[in-house]
């Protein structure tokens, strides 16, 4: 994460100031309102500390980046995103400072949290060597870390969410999950032991077809090692009502069935629409580009 990216997250802008846009004032109001809620305040505090770490890393101040990242990692109840980002800063800072062993250990952890993480090979041996050792460790495990979910629910029947965690490091201590049938607002939350477990889901109540759920695999400090969905942005699974009440009928020609014409018509309409989109000339939309103009400053002011 670069400084400028972090700046964007925090709403910093290059010019114009806060007075320039009413949207910024609305955003500031929303932020202040959010900070009034303790949970948000805690999350915002961790985000700020993490931003300090990422900013320091981007500014090549690796010692301070490491200190700030370690301070974040010392906390509890970290979301998966914060945990992953803080570990990344810690690993890269250790590598930049030449702490090969610590960098390797942090890269091993990082690959547990994010098995797809890669170090840019252009970064040089100080970074790539401990990362290669960490990848070697994982290759020796013979499997990647992660969490798989299988949701088995049908209309009008109780179902379950099957959870399988793959945790070669053994750092997942429990799995926490929540589910609700929308439009219910409250989640039913359950905690189970890690590895292969199933959570029972009651049958969908009348008028509800949408199951919303989230699952988090937590370490000893309640940090989300793996995460699928959150209470704010849950995963969704829909159930559909089966067609009922059709009496058995004698065999008739398919041409006498209205279903034939409905399906046939749908296929023709689909082919026509698909053909239109497939064959129409593609409109080229170039990526947004800009012209970087180099200027000069002498010290902190523009050169005069």
């Amino acid at each position, binding site marked *: 994460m670069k400084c*400028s*990216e972090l*700046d964007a997250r925090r709403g910093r802008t290059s010019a114009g100031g806060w007075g320039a846009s009413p949207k910024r004032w609305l955003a500031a109001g929303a932020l202040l309102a959010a900070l009034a809620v303790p949970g948000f305040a805690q999350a915002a505090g961790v985000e700020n500390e993490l931003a300090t770490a990422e900013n320091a890393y981007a500014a*090549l101040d690796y010692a301070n980046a490491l200190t700030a990242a370690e301070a974040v990692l010392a906390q509890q109840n970290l979301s998966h995103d914060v945990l992953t980002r803080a570990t990344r800063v810690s690993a890269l800072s250790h590598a*930049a400072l030449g702490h090969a062993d610590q960098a390797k250990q942090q890269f091993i952890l990082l690959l547990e949290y994010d098995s797809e993480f890669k170090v840019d090979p252009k970064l040089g041996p100080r970074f790539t060597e401990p990362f290669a050792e960490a990848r070697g460790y994982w290759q020796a495990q013979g499997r990647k870390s992660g969490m798989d979910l299988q949701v088995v629910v049908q209309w009008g029947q109780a179902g379950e969410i099957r959870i399988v965690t793959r945790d070669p490091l053994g750092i997942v201590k429990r799995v926490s999950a929540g589910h609700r049938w929308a439009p219910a607002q409250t989640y039913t939350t359950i905690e189970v032991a890690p590895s292969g477990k199933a959570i029972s889901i009651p049958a969908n109540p009348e008028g509800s077809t949408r199951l919303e759920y989230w699952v988090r695999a937590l370490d000893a400090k309640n940090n989300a090692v793996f995460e699928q969905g959150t209470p704010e942005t849950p995963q969704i699974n829909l159930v559909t009502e089966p067609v009922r009440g059709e009496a058995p009928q004698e065999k008739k020609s398919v041409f006498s069935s209205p279903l034939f014409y409905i399906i046939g018509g749908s296929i023709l309409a689909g082919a026509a629409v698909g053909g239109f989109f497939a064959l129409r000339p593609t*409109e080229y939309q170039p990526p947004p580009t800009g012209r*970087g103009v*180099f200027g000069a400053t002498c010290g902190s002011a523009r050169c005069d």
Partner: protein
Amino acid sequence: MGACAVKEDAEPAEIALDVQFPSTAAAVAVDGVKVYVYDGTLACNELVRLRQTAQQLPPNRFESRSITPCDLQAGGPNASVELDLDKEYTMLAVGQASGRDLLVGCSSQSAFGKTKAQPIALTYIDATQRIPETTCTKLSDKCGGRCQ
């Protein structure tokens, strides 16, 4: 199909990429600055180290000609580079005097248009080097030939 209107290309946004000299004297001392633009985020300390130790730099996306501090001060098309606003770049700048590296700086850039570009702060490539004395108090005096 006739509804597909031809879109006019908008003028590309202009992003100020400041090369930050440590002082006016340093800007006056430098004959030219070369800027190397790399795709993605590279480790600036590694790039600087490669340059300090006269090793080959990795392949770049763009390498500027030697831009004089006067051209930098004036800005304009002689000192510009086309950038994709969605991408991240690493920029290494090297200030040379009398054909030798004098200053070097590096910064990573991303999210142009949303945030201000990071300045490329130049520092002395070798701590033992000294900036030659100058009678110029302003860079514009040197550019106007009023001092050396």
